[in-house]
């Protein structure tokens, strides 16, 4: 087996187990399966190019970082620079949704509703929810993948969850206007 062939084999063995995670993240950032696949392909080629410099360690986080950056580059090209609205990170008074005990989301929200609510989030918020809730990354890993400080991970994730909850409360109120 030639060296190139060996390198490729090593790369595939390390990378292919994380294909689902990569596709999942790409899908939720790009919003459609075709773009998700294109991004995964491009990210994988890039990862292969960078592979020689990869010291080992957290392969999944390394790959997800490349996937994430590939996606955001593509989004900027697709939509132009002006589209990324500055996230209002400040926690405004009175914005937290009411925590009335009757509104149990687990009872009222199905996956279609959650999907809709997730799709409605700004990309940067949705990305954090995906990395934390779906991929189970630690805050430190998320900070690495998203390229933000740990403190920002915490505050942004908190905001993302608040928005998600508010949206789900709203959607489930539409479904169950008279209560469950």
């Amino acid at each position, binding site marked *: 087996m030639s060296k190139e062939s060996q390198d490729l084999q090593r790369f595939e063995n390390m990378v292919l187990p994380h*294909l689902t995670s990569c596709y999942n993240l790409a899908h939720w950032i790009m919003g459609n399966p075709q773009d998700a696949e294109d991004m995964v392909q491009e990210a994988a080629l890039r990862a292969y*190019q960078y592979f020689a410099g990869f010291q080992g360690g957290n392969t999944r986080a390394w790959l997800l970082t490349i996937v994430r950056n590939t996606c955001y580059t593509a989004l900027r090209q697709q939509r132009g620079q002006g589209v990324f609205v500055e996230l209002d990170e400040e926690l405004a008074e009175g914005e937290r949704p009411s*925590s009335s005990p009757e509104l*149990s989301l*687990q009872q009222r929200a199905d*996956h279609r509703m959650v999907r809709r609510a997730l799709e409605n989030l700004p990309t940067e918020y949705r990305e954090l929810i995906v990395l934390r809730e779906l991929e189970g990354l630690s805050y430190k890993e998320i900070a690495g993948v998203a390229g933000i400080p740990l403190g920002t991970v*915490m505050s942004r994730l908190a905001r993302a969850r608040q928005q998600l909850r508010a949206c789900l409360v709203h959607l489930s109120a539409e479904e169950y206007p008279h209560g469950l």
Partner: protein
Amino acid sequence: MDCERALALLPAYLDGELDLVTALELEAHLGTCDACAREYAAQRDLQGLLAGQRAELVAAPPPALEQRLRARLRQSAGLRPAPQPFFRPWGAAAAVLLVVALFALGVFLLSRGAYPGQESVVAQEVEVAHVRSLLPGHLTDVVSSDQHTVKPWFDGKLDFSPPVLDLSAQGFPLAGGRLEYIDGHPAAALVYLRNKHVINLLVWPSTASPGPLQLSSVNGYHLFQWRQGAMEFWAASDLETAELRAFVELIQQGAK
């Protein structure tokens, strides 16, 4: 611990990201504060929902993605496609017989002069160059859609001046150029785009007589080759043949 701090810590607490001491302080606060306890319950409700829905929310890749990815990686590494599992159900003996039969066929064809010879080797090189160019950062050495920028860029880098045409009006905008080395020749690569597809037009001087248009296919990429005006031309793309041919005809017209 006051409410403001408690509320700020709730998400990290739910994610198990708090150190033990802080977590215990928070729990103590939740034990005494109804407002924060309610907020905690609401956040835990959302966590529970997302955890329960996780399987439905995770986007599953299409089954063919892995295969396509492997093939693409193999191409970019300059390797031939992986051997197909085709042989396995046949057994080793059958495989050996097939190889011997193919060898015999090959010898027979060689004696009949049926092999394309040097041409197919160049086609392989062109395809590899095309695929390598698709790697990020490898597409162009000079980025410009203006022929008046790209054409002079080659001066001093090549000892010939390639024809650089502006086909943007016909839907094939120029993306730029780069240097290539094909079949022992320094060559110009002119990069054109068609929708999201890349076309590499490779050009180098040739003393061979003008030849007709030849179409070949390597690893799914379409390659058109011809000679014109003391130059050898190769156009490579994953575009379908008809569209690539339209591009080729425009080049042929413009390069006269």
